[in-house]
Each structure stands twice: as structure tokens, then as C-alpha cells.
């Protein structure tokens, strides 16, 4: 456990080494949120609510969902696994007395913490000050949201690790990375909330694990569900996370046999 936390912190520190890159990412984050907010303003076109969702709620959805619950940077995990395999660095990684998926998880959590604190926070503060930001619907909703946040991270990271592990079979991780990007942009509800999806499609997406990454946490944050339903969905999310963890463990045990170390 101490090694896990040390890895999380090391990964966090590693991110802080690139100051210029960080500045650019903050600016990029601001521009992206600005674009999302502008789109929703245009969609609402002066109406106070569409389909029972107020413009204020939608702006908060875009702001919080696009920063704290964003799935975008997490696809880096796939690229990282791919690079490790393509360059043969997997050899050095496997020399360490630790599970590779756990090491990946620790490093990604560190990178994620960095994103929240150094990039997400300034973006939320700046954009919130300009456009306004709704607080959680109630205190219990806010507390549940923290639980949802943990589930969101778990599902996002496990999905990334799972797709990343397929690099052991498909050597080109780039294709996997784009596959994951496309998949998550739509199915997590980070671009468009699932309540705006066409009925049949929306219902299916609703129950897929990806919707716990952005959509369900935001629905709870905004008080779209009562507390009982929120709790039920939280349990569902934890179930998905557990299932994904088992799948990762299984795929990893298979991948171990598949290891080919590139380049001598």
C-alpha cells in the first residue's frame, strides 16, 4: 500500500515537471469549456429549460462534467501501455515486484489528481465566476457525489487499463486510443447528457458502465434523482467497477503469456 501511494505521489510530481505544458493545458481547458458552454447557450436559444433541464443546470453539467469528470485525458493510459510495449520498456516494468495493472492504476491516479488540482480547479473557478456554477442539489446529494466520483475514476481507469492491455495483442495502440476516445465521448455522456439521447439508445447507454463516468454523477449532483435512486445507481456503479476489475485481472493473466519484448 505504501508503494501504491508513493507511486501516486511520484506520478503527481512527475506531472509538475512540465510547467509550460501545464499552462497550455489550463488554457486548453478554458477554451474547451468555453466551447461547450457556448454550444449549450446556442442550443437553448434563450429558453430557460429544454426537456425539463434548465440552462443553469446544463452549464454546470458542462463545467463540472468537462473538468472533474472528463474522460478525455484518461485515454493517455492506453497510449502509455502501447508505448511501454512498443519500445520494449515492458521488460523493465516487469522486473519490479508489483502487479502491472496496479502500477498503472497508481500512476494514472497521480496524473488525475494533478489534473484536478492544477488544471481543473483554475478552469472551474474562472468559468464559474463568469457563467455561474450551481452547488450540489442538497448536502446528501453532494456527499453521494463524492462516492460517485470514486466510482467514476475507478470505471474510467479500469476501462483505460483494459483497453490498454489489448496492446499486447494489437501492437498499434493508437487505434485503441482513438477507439476509447470515441467510445467514451459518446457513452459517458460527457459531450451530451444521456437524457437528450434518443429513447431506445439512451436506455441502453444508461446501463452501460461508461455512463457512470460523467452522466450518473452529474445527474446526482444536479438533483435529477431522489436520494434512494441515487444510492441504487451508486451500488450499480460499484458493481460495474468490480466486474471491470475482475476482467482486468483475467486479461492481464492472459497478457502475461503473450509478452514479447521488442528490441533485444
Amino acid at each position, binding site marked *: 500500500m505504501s*508503494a501504491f501511494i*508513493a507511486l501516486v505521489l*511520484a506520478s503527481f510530481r*512527475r506531472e509538475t515537471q512540465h510547467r509550460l505544458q501545464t499552462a497550455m493545458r489550463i488554457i486548453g481547458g478554458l477554451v474547451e469549456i468555453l466551447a461547450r458552454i457556448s454550444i449549450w447557450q446556442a442550443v437553448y436559444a434563450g429558453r430557460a429549460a429544454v426537456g425539463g433541464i434548465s440552462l443553469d443546470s446544463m452549464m454546470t453539467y458542462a463545467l463540472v462534467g468537462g473538468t472533474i469528470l472528463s474522460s478525455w485525458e484518461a485515454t493517455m493510459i492506453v497510449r502509455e501501455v502501447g508505448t511501454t510495449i512498443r519500445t520494449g*520498456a515492458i521488460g523493465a516494468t516487469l*522486473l519490479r515486484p508489483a502487479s502491472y495493472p496496479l502500477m498503472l492504476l497508481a500512476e494514472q491516479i497521480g496524473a488525475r489528481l494533478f489534473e484536478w488540482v492544477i488544471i481543473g480547479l483554475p478552469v472551474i473557478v474562472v468559468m464559474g465566476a463568469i457563467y455561474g456554477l450551481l452547488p450540489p442539489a442538497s448536502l446528501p446529494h453532494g456527499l453521494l457525489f463524492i462516492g460517485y466520483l470514486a466510482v467514476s475514476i475507478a470505471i474510467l481507469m479500469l476501462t483505460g487499463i483494459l483497453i490498454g492491455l489489448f496492446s499486447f495483442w494489437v501492437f498499434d495502440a493508437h487505434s485503441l486510443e482513438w477507439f476509447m476516445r470515441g467510445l467514451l465521448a459518446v457513452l459517458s455522456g460527457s459531450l451530451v447528457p444521456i437524457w437528450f439521447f434518443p429513447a431506445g439508445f439512451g436506455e441502453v447507454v444508461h446501463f452501460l458502465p461508461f455512463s457512470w463516468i460523467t452522466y450518473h454523477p452529474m445527474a446526482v449532483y444536479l438533483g435529477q434523482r431522489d436520494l434512494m435512486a441515487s444510492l441504487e445507481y451508486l451500488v450499480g456503479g460499484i458493481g460495474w467497477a468490480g466486474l471491470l476489475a475482475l476482467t482486468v485481472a483475467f486479461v492481464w493473466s492472459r497478457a502475461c503469456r503473450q509478452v514479447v519484448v521488442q528490441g*533485444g
Partner: protein
Amino acid sequence: MAAIISADNVAKIFRQRVRQPGVLGAFRDFVAPVSKPVKAVDGISFAIQPGEAVGYLGPNGAGKSTMIKMLTGILAPSSGTVTVLGRHPQQERVANAREIGAVFGQRTQLWWELPLSESFELHRRMYRVPEPVFQRNRADLIDMMELSSFIGRPVRHLSLGQRMRAEIAMALMHDPKILFLDEPTIGLDVVAKDVVRKFLTRINRERGTTIILTTHDLQDIEEICPRLIMVDEGKLLFDGSIADLRVTFGAKRRLTLEFAHDPGHVELADAEPLAGEGAVREFLLPDDNRSLVQLIGALPAGSDLRDVRLHEPGIEEIIRTHYQSKVPA
């Protein structure tokens, strides 16, 4: 004593894609790829006792790194068994990793963006090294490998020589029973190579750490490893001491005699006369431990000898001769 490492008829076969030429071939590759098996390691057996220092030697592509990767648990053998400290290194990779140290010359184990000291700290936690042991080893290794001047610097700013010293130090932080080194001196300058070799010799002698080292720099082996395992094309060629190597591959000492003037016919005990005429003569000496004094004493009285040179063949020469003899004429 029980062997600390053993390989029993180990083979590793990779499948290599065979590329078809031309556009049509590229299309065929995509639809139905053809692959052929390549034997990187082909039926190798050996046993290594605790405290030994063994050089694992062979030309590029001989299957050295593949063997090290099987012993460190990264790859599984295709057939045969490897045992390290009584374990199957791949199936019990994590347990194995805790008790071995490894340095891959061309790959880094250090955290690239972090100061060296933090890599050591991460290593301590990952290998669960007790604090007092870690503090003692850290102090010793920093001192022996002269790391103190750059311990606070990010690894990516280190020179290759500094980095390699740091890699070796880190691999020893957790008191491993076995140290695997894959090309540890590759790319280092003469001074850095010397530091690394002296250090490894010392670790082997003082701590009793078993060392397995692959290299194609023979001086590494001459200085560090009393025992040599030679492979080529995945097969075992030789396993024994360097002295045995001379005998096995028939390497003889060469004696050069320089006379003041042409002595005419010279007979030298059982030595085989080589090319040379006039005042300079060369002989190949038989392997019978006869001393130089005895040999020269046997020269006819009155020989006006100016100079005597004895040439011991280095292992480099022995091996070069061997590999060259395989090349089809």
C-alpha cells in the same frame, strides 16, 4: 550445494512474420499473415551455484537477453524449465523479483523525470526494504558508486555513465541474492567501465551476490567472471572456466624470439615453428606449463638472443578465432 539457478533443456521460440514482397504481398500479409518460428534459445542447460559470477557470452542475436528475460520472469520458456531460487520465475514473478536485482543496460529502471534520490525511495517501498537496511545500503552504494554529486538531479539529466552507476546501485538496494546484468557496460567510456567492473567484482566477493552478466565486451568477463557460458544461435557452445576455454578451443601461447642475426635452423623442444625467417622466429607453445626459462634454456648454446616475447591469447582472440572458423569459406 543446491544450484541457485538452473536451466534444463530450455528453448524459446518466437514467431516471426514473414513479409511478402510487393503490393499484392502486403495485401496477403494483412488477410492471412505467414509466420515462421525463430529459435532464440535452443535446448540450453546449466546450473549456477550461490556466489558464482558467470559471464553469459555470445554475438548479437545469440539469445543472451532472451535467456536473462526467462530467468527474471519476464518471458516464459517455450519448453524446458528454468528455476531461480527454487521458483518458477515467470509464474511467481513478483516473489522472484523481490529477491533478484536486474540491470538492463539499454533500458532504465529509474524514474526518468524524478530526482535519483526519489527513485531510490520508490524502490525501497516497492521492494519493502526495512528502513535500517535501506539506509545502510543507500549510504554504502552512494559512496562506492560515487553518486553523491548528482543524487538530487532528475535522472533524465544524468550522463550515461552516471545513470548506469545509479542503475546498478538501485538494483542492489534490497540485498538481492542474484544480480542479473544485461550489457551493463554498453556505451560506457573506459573509466566508467572500469568503475563498474571493479564494483561488481567487489560485490560478488564481499557480499557473495551471485552475478550473471551478459556482454559482448570480453574484458567484462575476464575481470569479473571466473566462469563463462558461451552461446551462439541459441545453442550452448561452452561452459567452464577461462582456462578451460583455452584448452577446449586449442588456444596456445605464442613465443617470439628475436636474434641478433639469422641463427639458421632453430629447434625448440615440442614447440611448433610458425612463419618467420631471418632473425625473428615464432613458435606455438604446447600446453604443458613449461616455464619460459626452461624453454629458452633448451636453445643451443651460443644463440645470440636479443629479445623474447610471450603472447597469451586473450579470450577475445580465442572466441574470434572460433566464430570466424564457423563462417563458410
